[in-house]
């Protein structure tokens, strides 16, 4: 029973990680740091989902990347591109209209 519930929740959350990444990476960030930040902001994600996702978004040119070698451990920093910001705005609008739609549903219910 729990498994079915988990699947439904997963289905609903799918896609929110992309939006969260695009928004958070308006200020540059790197893999593990982003993983922690997503977790603390309530977008718990598996590392093996996030790391390939970042590269995919980079390939789709919604993110740009740069190696930062200033510190002892070189890290690949990602940043949301202009196209990524537009995508984030579109997705946010979509999310808001979905929220409004669900609100009317629950309002009718009561």
């Amino acid at each position, binding site marked *: 029973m729990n498994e079915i519930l988990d699947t439904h929740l997963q289905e609903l959350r799918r896609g929110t990680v992309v939006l969260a990444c695009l928004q958070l990476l308006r200020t540059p960030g*790197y*893999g*593990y*740091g982003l*993983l*922690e930040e997503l977790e603390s902001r309530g977008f718990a994600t*598996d*590392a*093996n*989902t996030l*790391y*390939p*996702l970042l*590269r*995919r978004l980079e390939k789709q040119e919604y993110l740009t990347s740069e*190696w930062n070698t200033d510190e002892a*451990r*070189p*890290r*690949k920093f990602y940043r949301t591109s202009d196209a990524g910001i537009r995508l984030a705005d579109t997705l946010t609008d979509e999310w808001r209209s979905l929220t409004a739609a669900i609100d009317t549903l629950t309002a009718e219910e009561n």
Partner: protein
Amino acid sequence: MTTTATLTERYIAATVKSLRPDAQDDVRAELGASIADAIEARLEAGESPTDAERAVLTQLGDPGILAAGYAERPLHLIGPRFYLTWWRLLKLLLMIVPVCVLVAAALGQTIAGAPVGEIIASAIVATGGTIIHICFWTTLVFVVLERTGSSTSIDKWDVDQLPELTENGPGRNELIGSLVFLGLAVGALVWDRLRGFIPAETLPILNPDLWPWSIGLLLLLIAAEAVFAIVIFRRGGWTVGVAVVNTILALAFLAWVLVLLLRGELVNPDFLAYAVTAGGDGFAAGDAEASGEGGIMRILAVVLGFGVAAGVVWDIADGWIKTVRRRRP
């Protein structure tokens, strides 16, 4: 420390090795930094280095899955885009090809005069091999399509592909068809005996010695088939019982033909002699050539037997297919 370093190295190597060469170094460096960051965070929380590394790598999971994520490879053999096309094609091929191979292999072996055991064994081996080949190669083609991200239009569906509804009840046509066919069969039997099909000669094709007992049995079977056809029509369709009776009748007819054919009693010896004479030198030469297989007449007998058997098997299968279809809502 050396063992812990080795674990991470092994994990990264396992992830990276199946990626495109130009992406390998970048992924290696990035993944290495991410793993090191995660281990560091756990060390700060007070874990031992060994535990920390094991926990981090365990959380990352199977490197094969991670690599598939990086390379955007599917983790299934045939995905939803091609699955139905694959399944339909496979079913179609499996319905047609193995049966043809089975019959062809058995026919060839029988003509070549192989013993019964060998006929059965080689036909089964050939059919089994065919089934395996069909499954393997068909699947391989679709796996390649899936892996190459092919965008062929074979997966497009449109309403014209909807299957026709199959008629469940037996039509009047089926009844009339059966009765006319059975009537013609009786007519042909009597005509063959009294007048003969060969002009200017009163030479029956079927052995006259079959009258009255064997032919009587055949006429009984024909009568039973006629009654059976009427019963199906009256009862409004095929049921399991009807299909069983159909199977028994068909097998009885097959047994009738095969027993007489194997005993060499089916065809009139005078007619065979007449046919050989009418064939002339060409026939004699062909017969000599085919003598290793027992002569042309034996080959013809084998082909006739297979033909009758194929017809009977189809009749039985047709009955069961109609029964199953009718039971489905």
